[in-house]
């Protein structure tokens, strides 16, 4: 159904004319609920919101009429904009990733959104974004953009073979509760409910169930109240985290295509298919958040140019393996880089001076807090229990410091720089030395006094940097020389 006109310009799917209005209505539903429940009592504000929604819907419809794209032998072009006509041009050899996403509405209508990632990581809204095409068309486009080498060798009709690197096992769901995404979900839901109540001008105290609960709380002791609320919150968060895990990672598959691409597909309701060109892959981050580490889990994130590491459970599409057993994560990380050694080799520790620095920083901050609390108590500003409670921070800080000191490590293994650090999130970053652009050698006043340095390898991929934290200076220079021979040589004095 794709319309073609001269010059090979193609339009987005006409079914998007249905999707946009529904999407905007869903987004505005707290306002609508307010209007329906409370009539016009909502006053001017609600009508303004409704008007804005209508404007957005019309804008969305216009977007379909004004957007078109084409793929030529050298480049991908997108024309868009009504008043300000824009033509985006992306040379095809600069395409690093193709990301195909379909949420529930898209899937109901057989559509998919295509995002093309380039190496321009310094801007937020770069690259080409086509929302949305027919699912088949999106798949074809992805193959066209990334499998071109294989296509020219074997003929366009043949689908490139893929080898399976990892797939979701049902047992992995047990790691869901340890991802903390539930807190975010609960927060978002609470926000939506609160806004709906507000718009509908419903007083929460007038809802019977709630007022009954509040009454009961009023009669029991505060300790019991705190316990009940904590347990209830915990149950809700665990349930939400588990549900979120299934939602995001159901049917997860990681495959490698013949044409040198990595392919991730996942998602229960919103499906996502991400294709990463392997020659843009600069390394893999093996990360173990504290909670996940405590139950023997880990996850893997790709360090790729063109895919900046985002926030949230999905890490902006660069996630290679969702929270899974540690052994499985190690295997997948090794398989992706075709080399296990960087993930299994014992790392060089950073020694007692680095450990002392971790302790003095963590415990120092804790003591500072206690000191401030004691002074405030002495001045009569706060009650005595504040500094007594603050004392708990000291052993906690010491524990975190010990864990952080233990995490520090680095190595250069088979042409890759390995750096490990962190306690709350322990990361072992493996960056191919070819991906290292330059070095930043950071030395704070206190680092200089203890002969330490933080060596930062800058790169265009992933988080843009890999840090070797608090390493003795001589070792930092040795690592830099080993990873990129010759770059430092003119500046070294022997």
């Amino acid at each position: 159904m794709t319309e073609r006109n001269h010059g090979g310009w193609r339009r987005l799917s006409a079914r998007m004319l249905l999707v946009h209005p529904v999407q905007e209505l869903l987004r505005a539903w707290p306002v609508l609920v307010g209007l329906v429940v409370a009539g016009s009592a909502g006053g001017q504000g609600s009508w303004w919101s409704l008007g804005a929604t209508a404007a957005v819907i019309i804008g969305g419809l216009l977007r379909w009429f004004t957007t078109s794209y084409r793929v030529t032998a050298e480049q991908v072009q997108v024309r868009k904009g009504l008043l300000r006509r824009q033509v985006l041009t992306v040379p095809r050899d600069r395409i690093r990733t193709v990301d195909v996403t379909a949420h529930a509405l898209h899937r109901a209508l057989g559509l998919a959104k295509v995002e093309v990632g380039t190496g321009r990581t310094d801007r937020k809204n770069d690259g080409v974004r086509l929302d949305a095409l027919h699912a088949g068309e999106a798949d074809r486009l992805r193959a066209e953009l990334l499998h071109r080498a294989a296509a020219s060798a074997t003929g366009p009709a043949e689908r490139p073979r893929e080898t399976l690197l990892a797939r979701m096992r049902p047992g992995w769901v047990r790691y869901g509760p340890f991802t903390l995404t539930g807190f975010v979900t609960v927060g978002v839901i609470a926000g939506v409910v609160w806004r709906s109540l507000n718009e509908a001008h419903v007083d929460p105290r007038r809802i019977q169930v709630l007022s009954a609960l509040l009454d009961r709380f009023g009669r029991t002791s505060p300790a019991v109240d705190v316990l009940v609320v904590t347990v209830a919150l915990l149950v809700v968060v665990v349930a939400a985290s588990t549900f979120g895990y299934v939602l995001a990672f159901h049917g997860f598959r990681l495959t490698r295509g013949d044409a040198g691409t990595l392919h991730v597909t996942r998602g229960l309701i919103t499906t996502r298919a991400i294709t990463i060109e392997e020659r843009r892959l600069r390394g893999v981050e093996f990360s173990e958040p504290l909670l996940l580490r405590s139950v023997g889990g880990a996850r893997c994130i790709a360090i790729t140019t063109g895919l900046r590491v985002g926030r949230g459970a999905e890490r902006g599409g660069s996630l290679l393996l969702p929270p899974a057993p540690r052994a499985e994560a190690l295997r997948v990380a090794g398989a992706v880089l075709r080399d296990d050694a960087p993930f299994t080799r014992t790392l060089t520790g950073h020694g007692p001076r680095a450990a002392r620095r971790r302790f003095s920083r963590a415990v120092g901050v804790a003591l500072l807090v206690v000191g401030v609390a004691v002074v405030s108590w002495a001045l009569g500003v706060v009650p005595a229990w504040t500094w007594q409670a603050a004392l708990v921070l000291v052993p906690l800080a010491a524990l975190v410091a010990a864990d952080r000191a233990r995490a520090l490590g680095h190595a250069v293994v088979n042409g890759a720089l390995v750096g490990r650090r962190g306690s709350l999130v322990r990361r072992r970053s493996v960056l191919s030395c070819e991906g290292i652009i330059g070095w930043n050698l950071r030395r704070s006043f206190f680092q200089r006094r203890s002969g330490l340095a933080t060596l930062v390898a800058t790169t265009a991929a992933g988080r843009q940097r890999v840090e070797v934290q608090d390493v003795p200076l001589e070792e930092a220079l040795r690592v830099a020389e080993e990873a990129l021979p010759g770059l430092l040589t003119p500046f070294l004095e022997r």
Partner: protein
Amino acid sequence: MYGFGDICHGTVGDNALCSDDGGSAKIDGVEATEARLRPPRHLVSRKAIGYWTLRALGGWLPVVAGQVAWTLGDGGHLPWHLAGLVLTGVLGAAHVIVMPQWRFRVHRWEVTPEAVYTQSGWFDQERRIAPISRIQTVDSERGPFEQLFGLANVTVTTASAAGPLKIRGLDREAAERLVDHLTEGTSADRSDAT
């Protein structure tokens, strides 16, 4: 340093730029333990000291003014206010006097045919090294007060968002020549540099 003598000879009256001592261990900002990785060869313009002093003053004056206004408006607690003012005065004076001198000794730069090498900071210091072949853009910019002092900054970026090399407080002509030199060097190389 190769092929870069022209900058030194061209900037008359600014001997600091030609300083070739490589930062002996006597300089307090650079310690003897760093003997193995020597600092970059060139200092920035001496005029930068004045600029940094002015900027530090500009940062402290509002604080002092705010404290004075509070003292006058409050009426009571005079000993506390005076103690606060003295503390601010001592800290501010120390910062305004020490920081620019210290910074001047630390801020250094060097360009070889293979790499750009910078050192910056004062209390906390950082050295950055990037290969010429990985340079993506070379910018120079001057703020209003920097223009007053005849200074300019040069920023060398690579494909990594973590690693722009900034040379602050360069003499204006030296900055122009540095930009010309670097853009000449990088335009010859057409690879992707990521």
